[in-house]
């Protein structure tokens, strides 16, 4: 496909006819893609808050080379992760593993949502059982009137 496109390009762009197709930066683009997807979830350990994929720091380049080498030898993504965690700890993972200390982190949003929904339903049912004081309504209407005619004008 790439060749086909290159050929069409060469055919339709006359002044590019003598040009060379720029080779991919990586020797093995498929492996490189896999590497970058994985590196996108890993932390560059010496950077301010950058992924291993983004960083140009020396350590990041070395680590990418190391991972590339391991992948070339047939290591799976999990093998690479295990290797890095053994060397640098969980700090290297942008997706924190589920364990005792991160239980609250991963369950937190669900707990918050549950609390929110419980409060919501309780407040809704409480409202259904309260009868609106007619006086309040009348007083608000007066207030509305005093605030100006357009106060309640927005149709809703």
């Amino acid at each position, binding site marked *: 496909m790439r060749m086909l496109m290159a050929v069409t*390009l060469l055919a339709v762009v006359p002044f590019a006819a003598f040009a060379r197709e720029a080779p991919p930066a990586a020797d093995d683009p498929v492996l490189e893609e896999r590497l970058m997807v994985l590196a996108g979830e890993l932390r560059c350990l010496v950077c301010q808050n950058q992924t291993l994929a983004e960083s140009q720091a020396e350590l990041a380049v070395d680590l990418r080379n190391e991972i590339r080498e391991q992948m070339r030898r047939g290591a799976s993504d999990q093998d690479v992760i295990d290797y890095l965690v053994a060397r640098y700890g969980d*700090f290297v993972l942008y997706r924190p593993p589920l364990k005792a200390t991160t239980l609250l982190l991963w369950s937190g*949003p669900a707990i918050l949502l549950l609390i929110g929904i419980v409060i919501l339903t309780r407040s809704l049912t409480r409202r259904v059982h309260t009868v609106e004081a007619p006086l309040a309504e009348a007083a608000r209407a*007066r207030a509305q009137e005093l605030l100006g005619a*357009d106060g309640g004008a927005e*149709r809703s």
Partner: protein
Amino acid sequence: MIPEIGHFALILALLVALAQGIFPLVGAARGNLAWMRMGRTAALGQFLFVAIAFGSLMHAFISNDFSVLYVASNSNSSLPVQYRIAGVWGGHEGSMLLWLLILAGWTVAVARFSRHLPEEFVARAVGVMGLVSVGFLAFMLFTSNPFERLIPAAADGRDLNPLLQDIGMVLHPPMLYMGYVGFSVAFAFAIAALLSGRLDATWSRWSRPWTMLAWMFLTLGIALGSLWAYYELGWGGWWFWDPVENASFIPWLVGTALLHSLAVTEKRGAFKGWTVLLAIFTFSFSLLGTFLVRSGVLTSVHAFATDPARGIFVLVFLGIVIGSALLLFATRAQRIGLGGTFHPVSRESMLLLNNVVLAVAAGSVLLGTLYPLVLDALELGKISVGRPYFDTVFVPLMAPAMFLMGVGPIANWKKASLPDLATRLRWAFVVGLLTALLLPFAMGRWSAPVSLGLLMAAWIVTSSMAGLLERLRRSRDSGSILAKLGANSRSYYGMLLAHVGVAVFIAGATLVKGYETEKDVRMGVGDSVEVGGYGFRLERLSEVSGPNYIASRGEISVTRDGRAVTVMYPEKRSYPTQKNPMTEAAIDWGFYRDLYVAFGEPLDATTWVVRIFHKPFVEWIWAGWLLMALGGLLAVFDRRYRIAVGKPLRAPASEPLLREAGAAAAR
């Protein structure tokens, strides 16, 4: 000499702020009108002194006064003048001063544009803002004085970080701070209402335009930050879930909840307690954001522990602000009352659900941002929380909110019926669904995530349109379509615009994620490559020198189907004073796609690793945020707030009645 004037002005500002914080509040409690009125004068005085301090610091930057430590650390004599000005807020001390200047500015605005409000109320609000100011002034004077001298003076400055030498640095922080600090008005109004014990619909009406304005600035600030990261970092990403970004996103989420909750409080008198809480939390999170970004705690908990003065101060200040506000809320909560009743299926309940979702989303982002810090501080291990976590948690949470965005605005207040809503929205749903299913084919490849994202975007647009059409059909005006359109309020159109903005944003984010192409290639002069249907050819390489850097620049011609499209000039810059090389990506901006070319590393004198992206619809991301901000602006100028800038309301006669009404509603 001038830096000393600035320092002295700050001390005077602190004294004035103390007066501004004490007299109006005490005056309001005792009914002393003269003391209450002192607030306005003090606010103006404080603004003047802070402005003098700010001007002095700016003068030190522009005149390259490297005997001032802060200037020596953040500027350089070869720095272009616009970045010397931006350098004022390029570091910790100066950004605190900017924060203060903006706070003083908002206070003056409140004092000026609230003449029609009861004196007592304005006095309390101005007083509360004065107290916040006292905290920040004391913080600056005791821990972060920007006017500290460097003796002997440095020969030249250490320069501003090259990443910050950009128009983004000139615009983004002031915009963001306008939003952060603007929420102090909502906070001050909420506290004033709590103090007076009169939390009624009028309070929320006064608070709404201010909150909306602050939200608009924060929206623009976040969008600018994202756009800046996109073109400056050379990675083509637009959001990184970086703690610094999260620090601004959390107040935005809570502020968005506040806007919606204020609407209900104003219209229906309900959720009063919740609205006040949100006002308190929105500002608290703004403070927390400032603290997170500025205390150094994000870089390392331990660095923070070794130099704790600043961090402890902000933490204590934060504790006092949030603690006292919540305490006040707790003591007044039982007096607040429920307000208007409504059915479990109604616009109120949907807005409440929207609030729950936004609050949970904000809580989750906060959890992910703070969790590693807490774990580290407790010595339970170091972990990183990044994009994979936030994507997993945030996106599923927001999906239901997007669905509600279509239903809520057309549901009736008090009581709505689900079958009725379903009937009214069925065509909107069908059109939205078809768009979402078919559009990916037009893009060349169907995928479930893209279709889902487009469904949300299309649904928001079609349901908004359905709502508008319904209003036009029901309109009693028999005149032209324009007259019918004109019958709706500006805040209604503001809401539509902001919601469509969300849709545009989702569409952009979805399409660019689904269909972008990237190629990393080795390019020598004369080499070409095809990306996303465009041909890129490196024509020549040259060395260029800027005011304070030298750069390798490439000239890349872009063609499509044989026709020349544009010429792009990516650069790799190196700044002599700050060693690290900077990628200056070349971007060809477009409505349907961006072409993005960034230099990587040089392989030899004539060959570079070049990263080329074709990013369809990426601009829609920021266009969406811009629409949201415009929607906010439109709502600020709604007719019913016009009184805010017009002549004073004839208050004396109506005020007792209002008070009675408020009290009655509270019972």
